[in-house]
């Protein structure tokens, strides 16, 4: 009896010990497995077709859809000086109707092939993106052919597009983020062709058939374009199909003068734009830099440390620590002539002033104090880990592809991504941060003036602009 009790006690003890041992793994996060190799679909580019059109194929047999992208090497910066926004105007007119298909016919046709069509006009290029069920490549190409070869530039089509875009802009101008970003672009790229990215709604009334025809005639040329197909299609078949539809697209001599270098503003400036009835206010703060000045990988790490995610410095300071902001992030954008680095924050009106001070403080800190190696490693780990997570989404994937193609970054750009991030050293990060903020940043605040008036008085000096980008007056602290 005694022996069996001892045995039972021993068994219970052993079970308890075993359970405790089993559960010890719960106390700390498990270490990661070794990182798996990133094998991305390769980009294959054919020799240009006889008319100069370049065709690339990203073969993906895992997709039940196809994506057809047409890049035109002419963006908002190529719009005529007298008529900013003509690039956007052209892209919308071209895709809205053709000589043989009305706007509603096109809408219906695209939906009938399980498709969607989007248009983006960037500073350097225009991008048309078709997405459709993979059985319908011929039909999608045929529609693209009609848009390019038989566009509808009638007064009716022009009027319709102008009216739609005016309504679209009216809606966007109620959004403080749109208003602030547009103003930031206008001032940071002052006197540079990129300034036209920030064209005002009123510019739409100046858009006209003559400028449209000239823009189309000059930039919508096969030897100024690149067609990319993503899906389950071999290169040879792709070029045959594209050639069959677009072989009559006539090439022309291209003449694009190089843009002048970007020169950042020389002194710190704070601006305000009223967005009546806006439900919140935003701070956009940014700077620009010439294209050959900065290594994109190092700057991506700087941006990640400063404001890439909710674990980055800006968010942790302005939201988690101070409670000033709903969010605070930063990002870097790269284009042909240079780059833009900006911070965006949505803040409570009563904290506008201290929020700007905290953002400036964080920028000063990142340019003056070396970043801890652990923080840099953390940022690199995020960027490397997030890359495949992000490009798993087809929209992000095709956006990255279009940037690679439009900026001729090379077909093996994909495979270099990990390596380039891994090679970023603390010294490179520090140098990138310093170079990026060589000049003091520009600050734009947008929100409802009636809510913010007393808060704007807290700044030493603040320039008030209207929605067209024209300076109205200055509020100086000492005059209060």
């Amino acid at each position, binding site marked *: 009896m005694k022996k069996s009790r001892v045995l039972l006690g021993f068994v219970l003890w052993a079970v308890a010990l075993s359970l405790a041992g089993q559960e010890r793994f719960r106390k700390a996060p498990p270490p990661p497995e070794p990182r798996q190799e990133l094998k991305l679909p390769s980009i294959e580019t054919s020799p240009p077709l006889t008319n100069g059109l370049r065709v690339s194929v990203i073969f993906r047999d895992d997709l*039940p859809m196809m994506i057809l992208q047409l890049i035109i090497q002419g963006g908002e910066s190529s719009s005529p000086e007298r008529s900013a926004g003509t690039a956007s105007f052209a892209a919308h007119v071209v895709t809205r109707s053709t000589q043989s298909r009305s706007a509603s016919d096109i809408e219906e046709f695209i939906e009938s092939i399980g498709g969607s069509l989007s248009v983006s006009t960037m500073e350097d290029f225009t991008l048309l993106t078709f997405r459709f069920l993979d059985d319908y490549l011929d039909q999608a190409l045929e529609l693209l052919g009609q848009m390019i070869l038989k566009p509808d530039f009638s007064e009716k089509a022009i009027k319709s597009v102008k009216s739609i875009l005016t309504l679209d802009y009216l809606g966007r101008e109620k959004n403080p983020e749109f208003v602030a970003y547009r103003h930031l672009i206008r001032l940071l790229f002052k006197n540079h062709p990129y300034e036209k990215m920030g064209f005002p709604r009123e510019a739409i009334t100046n858009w006209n058939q003559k400028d449209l025809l000239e823009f189309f005639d000059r930039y919508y040329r096969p030897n100024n374009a690149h067609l990319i197909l993503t899906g389950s299609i071999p290169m040879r078949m792709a070029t045959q199909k594209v050639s069959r539809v677009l072989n009559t697209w006539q090439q022309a001599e291209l003449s694009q003068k190089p843009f002048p270098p970007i020169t950042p503003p020389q002194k710190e400036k704070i601006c305000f734009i009223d967005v009546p009835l806006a439900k919140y206010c935003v701070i956009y703060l940014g700077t620009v830099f010439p294209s050959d000045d900065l290594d994109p990988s190092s700057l991506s790490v700087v941006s990640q440390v400063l404001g890439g995610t909710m674990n980055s410095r800006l968010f942790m300071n302005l939201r988690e620590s101070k409670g000033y902001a709903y969010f605070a992030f930063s990002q870097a954008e790269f284009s042909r002539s240079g780059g833009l680095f900006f911070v965006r924050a949505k803040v409570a009106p009563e904290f506008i002033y201290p929020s700007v001070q905290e953002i400036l403080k964080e920028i000063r800190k990142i340019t003056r104090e070396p970043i801890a190696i652990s923080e840099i490693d*953390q940022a690199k780990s995020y960027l490397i880990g997030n890359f495949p997570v992000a490009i798993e989404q087809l929209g992000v994937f095709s956006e990255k592809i279009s940037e690679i193609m439009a900026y001729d970054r090379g077909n093996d750009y994909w495979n270099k991504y990990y390596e380039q991030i891994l090679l970023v050293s603390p010294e490179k990060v520090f140098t990138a941060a310093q170079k990026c903020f060589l000049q003091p940043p520009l600050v734009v605040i947008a929100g409802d003036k009636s809510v913010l008036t007393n808060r704007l008085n807290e700044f030493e000096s603040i320039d008030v602009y209207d929605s067209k980008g024209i300076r109205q007056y200055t509020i100086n602290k000492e005059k209060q």
Partner: protein
Amino acid sequence: MFYKKIGVAGLAIVLAAGSLLSQAPNKYAFPFSQYKLKNGLQVILSEDDSLPVVSVAVAYRVGSLHELPGKSGLAYLMENMMFSGSADVPPQQHFNNINRVGGKLNASTSEDMSTFYQTVPSNQLALVLWMESDRMRFLEITEDSLEATRKDLLDIMRQRRTADPYLENQFSFDQLLYMDFPYSHPLLGSEDDLRTLTLDDVKNFYATYYVPNNAVLCITGNFNKMKTMELVAKYFETIPRGKDSSFVPAPYKYIKKQVIKTEEDSLALAPAFYMGFRLPLFAPNDIYSLTILDYILMRGRSSRIMRRLLGLDNKIAYQLSGGIEKRRDRCAFKIFVIANNPYWINQCQNAVFSELDKLKTAFPSDAELIKAKNMFKRDYLDRIATTLDKAIFLCEKYIALGNLDAMPLELEKTMKVTNTDVVTVAHRYFTTDNSVILNVRTK
């Protein structure tokens, strides 16, 4: 360990029999396997090595349907509480850990399912399983975490109530359409209920529904199956089984009766109306025909009601939304319209009725049918586009059906719908005496 007991060979047989290819072979099907742990946790695995990423979704069979009168909002509150820390993962650390490795995460609650999901680089799978298992077993539910969550939710409710026109009317309309409390009350609950929820309410809700035998764990993406099964067993198998839920949804008492009501909304800038039709699904395949009808009427810029109300040259409405909505076993077709100006509200309503009548009196053309099917196919494929989409899709199917072996061939059946099927369901359900209308006037 269930699968270690039967050995590797046995495992292979169980998996093969279980459903290695549970969907009928078509070019869009994706393979998955499934098994159950001893504690009742359903596990679904679907490998895809396109990219080095893995998605994990954990879905619990619980939502607003499981709330009792006076306790509305509990399911959504519980979803938020799941981020407030567990025994080994401090508050907000779940988010931070996912973010640090470049992943993304979120959660959602519906009427019968609460889902927690994340996508991470595939070498971080164990991290996710560790955190998900920790909050399944040891969630820290304290007065402090409850009060913090309650405050956040009350703030959201107040903001929505003061900023979203037509919101209160939407809740009224759902009550008219779905009638009984479990199906008709809003997901966020009522402010009064939320204020009075106690710590015991939350603890009991967690203990009842957040148990392995009421959950499904789905892992999709780039992983080694055997290693993953070992990880799943390591982290989840010792979580004790909970009591089996005694929840039984109230039987559906379908009443065919027209309801028309008018309300005022002080936030509304223009008159609007909600229109609905109850769809008791008299025949099992009606849902597929109704889906195509939904696309013909409401989906895409070129659909009939969209064109009629928001046409390029004839825009009489300011906003139009709606379509088929399923709340577990209840189904309804809903339309919400804000008129472009106060004088056109009747015109909008008549236009909707007129389009419904047209569908009953003339067959849609083959071209229109193909368009509807292709749009449905596109949207269906979008629902399974990424590893995360697939994980959520499989969880939803499992929660809805209780068994993936019997997963209906939704895509195939919908693609087989005929013109006659569409007209038949239009006649069957879209009748005046089956309609529910709530008119909203400005104050």
